């Protein structure tokens, strides 16, 4: 008896089989070997560069800024949970300028701590959440907003995905339609050929071909007229 296959084994096998069946076969069929090599190398190089530049930029600058004011801790933990919830709600929508992939709510950079304090104080002084957000944008620009505003320069950003989807749907539709036309035409010519025995070729291959086409046309007809 073979030992039972673990789940991980099964998934690995499935993944391997799928890539072999779809990915690799498709690539082999459609791209010459040299192009495959260049493409793979280019993609690999790009991914590496992206990774390197990402780690480099995140490591380079903030060290000084965050180490700086460790001695001066943030304001004492707020006592008002409702206020703190509002502070967090605003801070979660704002990007930390120092660690650019973190929110101001999540970052421990000195600047993020200061900005949280600012938000807290302004809310306490009775300013609205919108006013606080405007305060931040006036100083740091739209970049600080994780949700970019709807304006002329961001139209492509907001509508791009939908535009791409629309293009994909149109292309798909056109392809399906043209394929259906081709099939219909094939079926009808095959049917004609089968009926007119005068044009029939004598070779067995041609006969099989015709029979097959006739069968398909028939099946389609039956399917369409079916119950």
């Amino acid at each position, binding site marked *: 008896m073979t030992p039972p296959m673990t789940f991980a084994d099964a998934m690995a096998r499935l993944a391997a089989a799928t890539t072999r069946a779809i990915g690799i076969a498709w690539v082999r069929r*459609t*791209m010459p070997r040299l192009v495959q090599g260049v493409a793979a190398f280019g993609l690999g190089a*790009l991914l590496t560069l*992206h990774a390197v530049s990402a780690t480099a930029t995140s490591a380079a*600058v903030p060290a000084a800024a965050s180490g700086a004011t460790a001695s001066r801790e943030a304001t004492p933990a707020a006592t008002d949970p409702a206020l703190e919830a509002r502070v967090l709600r605003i801070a979660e929508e704002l990007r930390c300028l120092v660690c650019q992939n973190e929110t101001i709510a999540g970052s421990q950079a000195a600047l993020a701590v200061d900005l949280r304090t600012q938000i807290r104080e302004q809310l306490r002084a009775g300013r609205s959440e919108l006013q606080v957000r405007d305060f931040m944008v006036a*100083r740091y620009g739209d970049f600080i907003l994780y949700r970019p505003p709807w304006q002329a320069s961001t139209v492509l950003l907001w509508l791009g995905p939908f535009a791409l989807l629309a293009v994909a749907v149109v292309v798909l539709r056109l392809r399906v339609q043209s394929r259906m036309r081709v099939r219909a035409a094939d079926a009808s010519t095959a049917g004609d050929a089968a009926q007119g025995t005068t044009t029939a070729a004598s070779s067995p291959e041609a006969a099989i071909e015709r029979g097959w086409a006739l069968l398909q046309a028939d099946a389609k007809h039956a399917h369409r007229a079916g119950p």
Partner: protein
Amino acid sequence: MKRALLPLAVFVVLLGFLAAGLTGKPRELPSALLDRPAPAFSLKVLSADPAGAVISREDLRGQVWVLNVWASWCAACREELPALMDFARSSRVPVYGLNYKDQPDAALRWLARHGNPYHRSLRDDDGRVGIDFGVYGVPETFVIDRAGVVRFKHVGTLTTQVIDTQIAPLLRQLEGQRS
């Protein structure tokens, strides 16, 4: 053949986008303050004298001036100091320092040890004025014109190249507007 080229074309376009993404500099943000009035402030001058003078935005109106954000804890500030010293020595435009979130005695010691390029340094102890200026990474350098409008911002270490190619020409132009 045509079918084979389509994925390749898509791939090349994607490659182009990714390559363009690599050349961007995410650290250098456009300043929201550019061509806007400099924020109001009123700050103590950094000095050993506890009852130091106070300088406000209005005191500096009517002249072109440079604001350099620095701190004694900032390693890059040490790096840019020689270039800044050269510039301060040769330029007619005063360089003010914004001593950002620093301890006054540590700041004074730093200036005494490494050199002081500043006409005056203003104490931004809690970093509030820094926030008003949109500071997010010390050092930063601003040029403010006679009307009190921010005309230039540089984030990060100043180099002689930045000074010669960007700041000096701008200052000449701003100074020339007097006549």
